[in-house]
């Protein structure tokens, strides 16, 4: 289906600014960054739409969590020319619009010890970036500790904690809401977190 929505109005500068925001989000885990404005299709939040326009191109594969409106793949295909992956394992990027029904973290590509960068990057949309169970983060880019409270299902943080122990393997993630984005790279660990407990 041919899309009816434009992409970035100023492709060069808009994508550079968004890329900078995504970079800052990963280098300062847990801090919110703001992306530029874009008209998103139904089913994508504003910041997630700006991020996919910036990150995807002819050579990247993306896995869409089932259930997104048909306008989304049409829009992505027109503006980025990206390829769609059949399985999360084969994807460079995974677009998740509902974290509650998303597959477990182990189903995504974690890279290999020789090529840890060949992993899947998660693009997760949330209805809000606060109000969940608070967790304390530690790792590169965080001076001391930082607390966030993403509204994620109870079994997510144990999976994340287990993944960080497999460093350098793992996935990096961005969390989107409105025009805000927050990054969680694989280097970010949870402190004082007991596995098996859930919210």
């Amino acid at each position, binding site marked *: 289906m041919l899309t*009816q929505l434009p992409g970035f109005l100023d492709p060069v500068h808009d994508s550079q600014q968004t890329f900078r925001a995504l970079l800052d989000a990963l280098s300062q885990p847990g801090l919110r960054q703001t992306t530029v404005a874009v008209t998103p299709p139904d089913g994508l939040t504003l910041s997630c739409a700006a991020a996919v326009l910036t990150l995807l191109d002819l050579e990247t594969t993306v896995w869409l969590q089932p259930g997104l409106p048909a306008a989304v793949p049409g829009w992505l295909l027109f503006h980025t020319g990206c390829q769609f992956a059949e399985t999360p394992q084969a994807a460079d990027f995974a677009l998740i619009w509902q974290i509650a029904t998303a597959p477990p973290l182990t189903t995504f590509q974690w890279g290999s010890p020789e090529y840890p960068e060949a992993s899947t990057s998660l693009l997760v949309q949330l209805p809000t970036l606060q109000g969940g169970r608070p967790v304390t983060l530690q790792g590169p880019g965080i001076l001391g500790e930082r607390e966030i409270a993403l509204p994620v299902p109870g079994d997510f943080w144990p999976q994340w904690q287990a993944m960080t122990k497999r460093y350098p393997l793992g996935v990096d993630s961005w969390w989107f809401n409105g025009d805000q984005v927050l990054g969680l790279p694989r280097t970010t660990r949870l402190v004082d977190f007991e596995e098996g407990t859930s919210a």
Partner: protein
Amino acid sequence: MATLAKAPLALLEDCLQTLDAVPSYQFLRPPETGLTMVRGRLEGTGDPFNLGEMTLTRCVVQIVQPDQSAIAGFGYVAGRSHRHAELAALCDALLQHVDWADGVHAQVLAPLQAAAQTQQATAAAQTEATRVNFFTLKRGES
């Protein structure tokens, strides 16, 4: 599309001037210039090979009709003229528009095709004037 893409820009502008009150349009993909690989086949039937890269400008415009249905027009032109790509895309969109298709055919496509034919005929005549015929004379040895 080929007629629009190969037309001289000045002539295309002139032809579009003769159309009155072109509907408003917006860019779905603003004009952008890039490279594309041109591929060829030996004698038209052999294996494809990469001939070389050429500069290309493309553009997609959208006309939203009163009933909210949208028409997308595509323009791909050789070279770096953003304006040419925009006008080619606009004409492509108008050709799909029920109210405009006939007008564009008569006032834009027909003059452009005529101009292209004239130019081709002129070039052929100029080439013809310099034709040299080679003859092989039979030598009287046998």
